[in-house]
């Protein structure tokens, strides 16, 4: 049984069609991400769930209750805002206790205990008396989390919560958010434009373009089996090669002929199309190495060295655009030079055929 159920959500701003027919079910205890470029409607959808935006059409159901017309203060959802929205005139503890103000069933001592527990949970134990303006970005983020989680909402909504942090802090908070979500068991819905963030943290991801959900899948399935070229390009890097389909056989530029059944893709019609593969699914053969499988030939056109990895751009024979191959560096093995002859070992199973 799903905790949140969205049916036929349409949202117009004047003539602008921001959300187009969104149907979505999110389960209890799930870490769910809405992923997409800016302007795709992901934040609008989150605000619809929170109740800050009304819908033009459709229904929002949370815990089997119709919440479509219920204001945000009456919904079992809490939000962590992109700007964190920490009240600057209140201390850390007063910020966290803000939502408990209306809980008449708790006495002051019980509230203080809850606040202290929430601060401990986000690693800010003992910070209660501090002025909220004296905190760093990461600490403000934690206060925002504690302030929402202390109310034990059914759903925690996170609007690009990590976008204001630097890279190191961001990676640390990603791990911490996963830990927190497992600890409290609350449904988390994360809005992000960062595909890596979504892949790392989520159980399931909805990729959105132009107000619509383009693909809804688990992280691995999303990466391995993107349903469209646009999704594939948005999630990680994918090489695309022009191809022709005829009588159940694909002829891909630079790779040669492949039987359609060997590819991972649904049935397709004859005609011009594209095949795609991820940089790490093909292997460059170094001098002395051989492959049992299929090998394509070409030349190395660019080398980008990353320390643990090297990215090679390889121009396959009979192919205009180079493909990108990522290789883990092995101690003692020299990196290939630009202009070197390249042999690319690949397997049809790693290829996706796009319509």
């Amino acid at each position, binding site marked *: 049984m799903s905790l949140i159920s969205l049916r036929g959500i349409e949202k117009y701003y004047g003539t602008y069609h921001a959300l187009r027919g969104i149907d979505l079910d999110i389960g209890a205890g799930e870490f769910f991400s809405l992923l997409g470029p800016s302007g795709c409607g992901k934040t609008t959808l989150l605000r619809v769930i*929170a109740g*800050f935006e009304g819908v033009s059409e459709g229904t929002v159901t949370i815990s089997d209750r119709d919440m479509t017309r219920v*204001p*945000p*203060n009456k919904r079992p*959802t*809490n*939000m962590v*805002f*992109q*700007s964190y*929205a920490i*009240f*600057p*005139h209140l201390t850390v503890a007063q910020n966290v206790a*803000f*939502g408990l*103000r*209306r809980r008449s069933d708790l006495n002051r001592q019980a509230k203080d205990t809850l606040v202290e527990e929430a601060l401990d949970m986000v690693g800010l134990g003992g910070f209660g008396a501090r002025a909220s*303006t*004296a905190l760093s970005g990461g600490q403000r983020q934690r206060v925002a989390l504690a*302030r*929402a989680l202390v*109310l034990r909402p059914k759903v925690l909504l996170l609007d690009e919560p990590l976008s204001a942090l630097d890279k190191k802090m961001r990676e640390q908070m990603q791990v911490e958010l996963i830990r927190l979500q497992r600890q409290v068991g609350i449904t988390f819905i994360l809005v992000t434009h960062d595909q890596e963030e979504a892949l790392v943290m989520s159980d399931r991801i909805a990729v959105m373009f132009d107000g619509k959900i383009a693909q809804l899948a688990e992280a691995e399935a999303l990466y391995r089996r993107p349903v469209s070229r646009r999704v594939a390009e948005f999630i990680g890097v994918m090489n695309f090669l022009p191809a022709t389909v005829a009588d159940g056989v694909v002829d891909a530029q630079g790779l040669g002929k492949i039987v359609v059944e060997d590819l991972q893709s649904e049935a397709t019609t004859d005609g011009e199309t594209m095949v795609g593969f991820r940089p790490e699914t093909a292997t460059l053969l170094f001098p002395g190495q051989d492959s049992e499988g299929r090998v394509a030939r070409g030349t190395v056109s660019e080398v980008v060295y990353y320390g643990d990895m090297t990215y090679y751009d390889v121009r396959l024979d009979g192919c205009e655009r180079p493909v990108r191959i990522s290789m883990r560096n092995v101690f003692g093995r020299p990196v290939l030079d630009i202009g070197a002859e390249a042999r690319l070992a690949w397997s049809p199973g790693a290829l996706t055929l796009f319509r």
Partner: protein
Amino acid sequence: MLRTYVIAFLIFLYAPITLLPVFAFNSGTVIAFPLDGFTLEWFAALRTNRELHSALANSLTVAGTTAVISVLLGLMAARANVRYRFPAKAAAMGLVMIPLVLPEIIVATSLLVVVVQFFGWSLSLVTVVAAHVLICTPFAVAILNASFQSLDPALEEAAIDLGETRASTFRLVTLPLVMPGIIASLLICFTISLDEFIIAFFLTGSDTTLPVYIWSLLRFPKQLPIIMALGTLLVLASILILTLAEWNRRRGIARAGGSDSGGFL
């Protein structure tokens, strides 16, 4: 050269004001050097002057009422301006702000015509307050606009998200955060209304305000030292109010965790 200019400029600006206390304590009735001797006579005269007291009371009443009404109106206008989109917003806000640059003599004359000719009301402190609200509101709007603009809209949404109603959100979050702006605009409106002359002169009936009373004293040369004493007290009060306003503004910035930019002092 520049240094000489600055010094000359400052002397031109402040020398007349520093003359006020000098002659306020001078025992001679003629405002001229050399000074005669030290006296507190003029300050004592201020204490016993009934007309002055009632003018001062009138002015304080008018200024206080004006400040409160202007700031309430300013709050609503500024919030609407910053938070909402509505038809003809630019035009509406422009019309609210125009009294800022309208010559006061125009405002005073037209209001006099409307009040006396159209409605046949008698002139009183109420008509003065109404006119002062008209010219003070734009100042309140300008100050409060800045306050609302620096207020993250997510703060109000966060309060609602945490279970508060719109009304309690305004009380718990919005009001405390724009309070420095409210206090600053109260002080400004109070000061503007307190020393406003043209409108007060046109629209007061039998109850005069302080500036109008001072103007009436000028016709009697013997009263000049008393004006000097009164002026001295007013200068002190102005400095006090300005210091208060600035202190309040800086405290507000520190409280919101921002860095200082601009201000009066």
